[in-house]
């Protein structure tokens, strides 16, 4: 997943001459210093930990946005789409693995199962299906990205995204309902999408 040193290109992201992150750091540092020296203002200022946390996040975001991550994000789209399109096949293959192990997988596909980078069995199975859909130049990134997602995503993250998407859908549906039926105040539970609950 590391992108440092991979490419020097900025992929169209404009860099502002200086490093705004370090500038921000200095600015925040001096703010923090002021917080220490002028304690009378403390009540009106955010706490030190909040300032520090924001500085860290801003620095990370800045360097993150400067980094050549376009390929990774492009690949993430591609992986999601390919998995979505091949979900039935992946499920069948996974079932075959559970029943007959790797022999079952080998019977179902004629591609060689990738062994490197991909840590877990399920990641290998998914990759064995989608690898042929990922263009050669993106294969390495694709494997790493998939591995990062499949092996590291947590229940909390899945829940967070699910809840967020559900909220957004409810909002947009409510907005549409208001436009179509001004008398109708809010969308009812019936209007909710098939919300996924992972608890």
């Amino acid at each position, binding site marked *: 997943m590391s992108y440092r040193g991979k490419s020097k290109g900025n*992929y169209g992201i404009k860099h502002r001459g200086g490093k705004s992150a370090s500038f921000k750091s200095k600015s925040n540092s001096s703010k923090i210093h002021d917080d220490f020296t002028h304690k009378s203002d403390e009540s009106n200022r955010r706490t030190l930990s909040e300032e520090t946390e924001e500085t860290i996040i801003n620095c990370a975001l800045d*360097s*993150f*946005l400067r*980094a050549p991550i376009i390929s990774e994000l492009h690949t993430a789209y591609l992986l999601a789409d390919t998995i979505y399109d091949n979900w039935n096949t992946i499920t069948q293959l996974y079932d075959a693995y559970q029943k007959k192990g790797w022999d079952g997988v080998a019977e179902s596909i004629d591609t060689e199962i990738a062994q490197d980078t991909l840590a877990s*069995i*399920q990641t290998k199975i998914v990759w064995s299906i989608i690898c042929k859909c990922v263009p050669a130049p993106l294969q390495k990134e694709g494997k790493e990205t998939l591995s990062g997602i499949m092996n590291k995503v947590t229940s909390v993250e899945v829940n967070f*995204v699910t809840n967020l998407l559900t909220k957004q859908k409810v909002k947009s549906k409510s907005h549409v309902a208001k436009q179509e039926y001004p008398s109708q105040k809010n969308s009812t539970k019936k209007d909710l999408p*098939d919300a996924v609950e992972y608890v």
Partner: protein
Amino acid sequence: MSDKLPIEKIVQGFEREGLRFLFLFKTIKEQIQNELKKEGKSLPNEAILNKICAETAKELLIDSEQTPTKEEISKVLQCLKEKLNIHE
């Protein structure tokens, strides 16, 4: 495999856009976390990190049936960077 989420839990129930969102969200989060680790900085509160990553993913999620091009993603990132600087 017991310590990994079953694939069904990762994929099932998401529509195409949802799956894209999850993948973008996780990819962005991994990138930020890696960057912080490389620089030896402590990781921020997970809730804050999740919020930032979700906002970024939302910006990047181009509502289209087709996978956006690198140029399209690049433009969104550029806008986001400018927004962040203005915000500061």
